[in-house]
Structures are given as structure tokens and as C-alpha cells.
């Protein structure tokens, strides 16, 4: 088994700084700048790769992504409601977080594949973009179904927020420009910033995410052991489901693993923003705490190599 990547150690460095109450602070502008950079970079890389594929080829899998991603909250919701004893709003909101995806977990997955030299389909960033939205809609519907507050839901505002949200916008914009650059063979001078510096920037970003995660531990601890168990087991199930879908649509073992990572990851950027508008009565502390304080660290340290084992297993390689 491959050794831990140095880049994820920056997450631990951030967590420890938070726990010992160091005065270390990452400027908000740096955090936001790197998140813009990472999304564009992921998009560009995917776009360049896609310029070498026939887009039609990807279409059936892309459609399937949208449908299956929307289905994940349907599984998460009853678990949260009945075993987790969360109210309807919180159950729907948390389900939305786990149905949606995390770009940074995805990035760590790619870095893992690159570090062991395994091939994966270059158009995976397209799936990252496609998987972000559907679960937010299902989760919202679950949170509001039959609720009397549901009538005055600001659906227009919500759909605007979801569809024009900056994370998906940067990702898709990056894909389009990357596709154009790839097709016209003009990737060259931009790659120095957007490709070469990717891992280093991810390191700085993970440092801040560690600090953030540490600040969310209290929220998680308050909610007890269920949230921790859910935050670990649910991604494992979702990851296996993602690997199965990947294999079904003929992805390579590497692509299968990346899809597993996507399904297993939980959103902590797009989902909180959307849920605040859609389900304002839900407690964001709980869902962000679980996604960032439990599932994110689990995925980047333990989950990523497990999903690779799963991918090899569904491909009959292990």
C-alpha cells in the first residue's frame, strides 16, 4: 500500500494548530484565492483532457451521474431521521451535504492516483461539476416535504444560488477554457501556474482546512457518537456505490476510484450556502461539522486508499 502523501500532512498541521490554540491564521483572502485557483485549475485540467475525447462518448455516463447523485440523499435521509433522531430540516440538509461533492477531496484523490502513477479518465472534473447540484435539490425537497413552512420557500432564489454558485461556475468555466486551449494547442504558457503549482497550493489550502476542521470538532462532539459513525460509514457505502457505477459505465480502474471518491465525499462549501437559503431552520453547525470535521479527514487519510481497493475489487483485480 502506498504511503501517505505529504500534502495531506498539512491538514494535520492545521488541526494541531487549532487544538493547541496557536495564533496561526490563514488570511481569508488567501483561502478564497486558493479556492478560486483550485476550481479553475481542476476545470482547466479536465477541459484539456476532454479535448482529446469524443464528447458524445461521455454523455450516457454523465446522464447517469445526475440521476444517481440525486438518489443519494434518499438513502441518507431515513438513516438520519430515524437512527440519528434529527428533525426533518436537519435530516434533509445533512443528506444534501452528503449527496453533493467536495472538490478538495476530489483533488486529494487525483493527487493519490498521480502519486502511484495510475491512469484515470481525464474528464472526471466534468462529473465533479455534474454531481454537485442534483443532491442539493433532493435534499431540499426532503427537508421541506409536507412542511407548512415549505410554501414560502424561495425556490427562485435557491435555483439561482445553486446554478450560478461560484464553485460550479469556476469549474465549468475552467473546463470550457481548458477545452479550447487543448483543442487549439495553447495550453502551454498557462500550465505553469494552473498545473505545476497545484499540489503546493493544495497544501496551503489543506492547512486552513485543518484549522477549520478543528474549530468544528466542538459542534460534532456535542451531537454525540451517531454523527461520527454516520460520517465514516455512509461515505464507505457511497464510495462503494460510486465504484459500482464507475465499473458499470466502463471507466478504467483509476476513473472508477475517482468516482468512488466523488460519491463518498461530502460538500461543505456549496451545500451550506444552498441550505441556508433553502432550509434556513436547519442547523448549519451539525452538517458542516460532520462533513468537514469527520468525513473530510476520514476520506483523505483512510478513505482514498480504501476506494482504490474497492475500485480494483469491482474490476476483479483484487
Amino acid at each position, binding site marked *: 500500500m502506498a504511503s501517505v502523501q505529504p500534502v495531506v500532512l498539512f491538514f494535520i498541521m492545521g488541526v494541531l494548530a487549532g487544538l493547541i490554540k496557536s495564533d496561526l491564521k490563514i488570511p481569508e483572502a488567501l*483561502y*478564497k484565492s486558493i479556492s478560486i485557483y483550485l476550481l479553475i485549475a481542476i476545470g482547466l485540467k479536465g477541459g484539456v483532457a476532454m479535448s482529446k475525447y469524443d464528447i458524445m462518448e461521455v454523455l450516457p455516463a454523465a446522464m447517469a451521474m445526475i440521476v444517481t447523485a440525486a438518489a443519494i440523499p434518499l438513502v441518507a435521509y431515513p438513516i438520519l431521521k430515524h437512527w440519528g433522531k434529527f428533525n426533518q430540516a436537519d435530516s434533509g440538509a445533512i443528506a444534501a451535504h452528503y449527496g453533493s461533492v467536495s472538490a478538495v477531496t476530489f483533488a486529494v484523490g487525483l493527487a493519490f492516483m498521480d502519486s502511484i502513477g495510475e491512469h484515470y479518465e481525464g474528464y472526471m472534473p466534468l462529473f465533479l461539476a455534474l454531481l454537485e447540484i442534483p443532491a442539493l435539490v433532493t435534499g431540499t425537497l426532503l427537508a421541506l416535504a409536507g412542511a407548512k413552512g415549505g410554501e414560502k420557500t424561495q425556490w427562485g432564489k435557491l435555483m439561482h444560488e445553486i446554478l450560478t454558485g461560484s464553485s460550479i461556475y469556476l469549474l465549468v468555466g475552467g473546463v470550457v477554457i481548458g477545452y479550447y486551449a487543448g483543442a487549439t494547442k495553447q495550453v502551454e504558457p498557462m500550465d505553469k501556474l494552473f498545473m505545476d503549482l497545484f499540489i503546493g497550493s493544495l497544501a496551503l489550502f489543506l492547512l486552513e482546512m485543518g484549522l*477549520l476542521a478543528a474549530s468544528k470538532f466542538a459542534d460534532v462532539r456535542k451531537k454525540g457518537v451517531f454523527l461520527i459513525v454516520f460520517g465514516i460509514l455512509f461515505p464507505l457505502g457511497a464510495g462503494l456505490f460510486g465504484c459500482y457505477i464507475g465499473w458499470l459505465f466502463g471507466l478504467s480502474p483509476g476513473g472508477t476510484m475517482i468516482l468512488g471518491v466523488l460519491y463518498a465525499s461530502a460538500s461543505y*462549501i456549496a451545500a*451550506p450556502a444552498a441550505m*441556508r437559503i433553502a432550509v434556513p431552520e436547519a442547523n*448549519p453547525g451539525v452538517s*458542516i461539522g460532520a462533513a*468537514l470535521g469527520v468525513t473530510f479527514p476520514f476520506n483523505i487519510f483512510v478513505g482514498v486508499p480504501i476506494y482504490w481497493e474497492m475500485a480494483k475489487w469491482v474490476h476483479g483485480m483484487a
Partner: protein
Amino acid sequence: MNNTIAMKRFEIVIGIEQLDQLMELLERSEVRGYTAIKNAGGYGSRGARNPDDVLMTDENVVIILACKEDQAQRVLNELRPAMKELGGMCLISDCQWVEGPAVSY
């Protein structure tokens, strides 16, 4: 004090997501001057709001507004029903406007 005009001072605190709504309302009341301080935090009926949180936009805005008594009543008539929806708080107090700068009230 000499060369001052008795006025009313409004101090409004709302979430930044309601700022556009409030601005429209002030425009309707024909307010000709206000000061806005963004990046404020606080605590209220909806719990804590922290502008430094990078994951949630929990920013408050403080609006300060000085105007004459009659205008103040007009602003209040527009503002009071809206505050219910906007949340936050609105305080009114007495103050003296020092004459000198161009009239903007």
C-alpha cells in the same frame, strides 16, 4: 450648542443578505444621506453571526442615518413594518447635526 440642528439618529443592524432590500426602502423614504459599516458581527435572536467565518456568510451591516424629525417619522413608517422581516435591530436617538458640510439629510 450653537450652529447645530436637532435631529434624529437611526442605527440599524441587519444581515448583509437584507442590505439591498433596506437600501430600496431608504430610497423610497427619500433619505439623502447614510453611512454603512460592513463586516460587523453580533448576537441576536438568530444566534451568533461572525463575519470572519469563511464557510458561512454571516455578516451584519450597521447603517447610521441622521435626518430631521419629520423625515424621521416617514422613515420610521416605512421601516417599522419591514423590520419584522429584515430582523436585526433599529435604534433611534436624539442628536445635533453640526452645520457646515453640504446638506445631506
